[in-house]
């Protein structure tokens, strides 16, 4: 098991673990804010996974500093980084909307327990 394989397993493993922890929080925790925390943990896990995909052991950052214009071979894959950049900002946007909805829900129901917010059913 050389280090590259170890790093890969470590990063992928943690990101899957993060996704599971996030899902656990979303599915069992009763407070709405805890659910949103769970969602942002899932997002974090996925972004780590995405960057892990692009990582090449011993690769360099995809920036062409003045010295090394030709260091293309050992560069890390820039595409996942561009995707993660967009995904983080989208995740933030959705979290902001979610938290504003929580404030409105609290103003209307005076509780943040998801079991009590069940007016719309069947």
């Amino acid at each position, binding site marked *: 098991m050389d280090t590259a394989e170890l790093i890969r397993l470590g990063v992928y493993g943690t990101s899957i673990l993060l996704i599971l922890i996030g899902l656990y929080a979303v599915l069992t925790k009763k407070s709405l804010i805890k659910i949103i925390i769970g969602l942002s943990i899932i997002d974090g896990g996925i972004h780590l*996974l995405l960057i892990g995909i692009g990582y090449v052991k011993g690769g360099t950052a995809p920036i062409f500093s003045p010295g090394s214009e030709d260091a293309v071979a050992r560069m890390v894959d820039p*595409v996942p980084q561009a995707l993660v*950049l967009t995904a983080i*900002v989208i995740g*933030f*946007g959705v979290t902001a909307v979610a938290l504003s909805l929580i404030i409105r829900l609290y103003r209307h129901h005076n509780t943040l327990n998801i079991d009590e917010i069940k007016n719309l059913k069947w």
Partner: protein
Amino acid sequence: MKKAIVIFFLAVFGYFMAITFLSPEFEADRNRNGVKDFYLEKTVSDLKTANTVTAIVVNFRGFDTLGEVTVLFLAATALGSILFKKRHHIGERTVLYPASTIVGSGAKLIFPAIILLGAYVFIHGHLTPGGGFQGGTIIATGFLLMLISYRNFSISHNILSVIESLAGILFVVFGFMGLIYGGSFLENFMGTGILNDLFSGGVIPVIYILVGFKVAAELTGLIYTILHEKG
């Protein structure tokens, strides 16, 4: 009892995720040289921007960023519409903790530094890591600091939305200019200059600066709305 079921389901889900991502052949038969080689090679030769990620974000996949900016614009407007309060009873600012003197004086010192750092980050987007989004957010944190530490510090909502709209419009206008001069939407029609030079990369730094302004104005507006929301 419910927790046990959930844990069982998550275990099964984790198992399947593991066999997909952690298995050796996931790594073995990966197609390593997909589109990225073209991007790496083209950013140096054609676009002459040092930071490949910025080149991808602004030029190769510029449409994503346009969508991205709309998502932020939508989030800010959605926040405004969800927490909308009639003019006269805007709650006074939620004060987290009364700002002590250290925070007060410190804020006045750090604030210009943060703004300068933010500006630097999004001006040099195409050379050093960072860019429009990162710079804009840093500036927003700067304003956040001032909003928290000084009760009377306030920014007029109109200026923010003007900057935000102007930046957005210019972004799309540059896209259309790309269509007129360069042949397709968001094309890099300006001269790309020399690699690692401040004015290199054609329209990329210009667009990224506009994105920086837009994100800065938007997030500040967002923070301003959510801060003024009395529970």
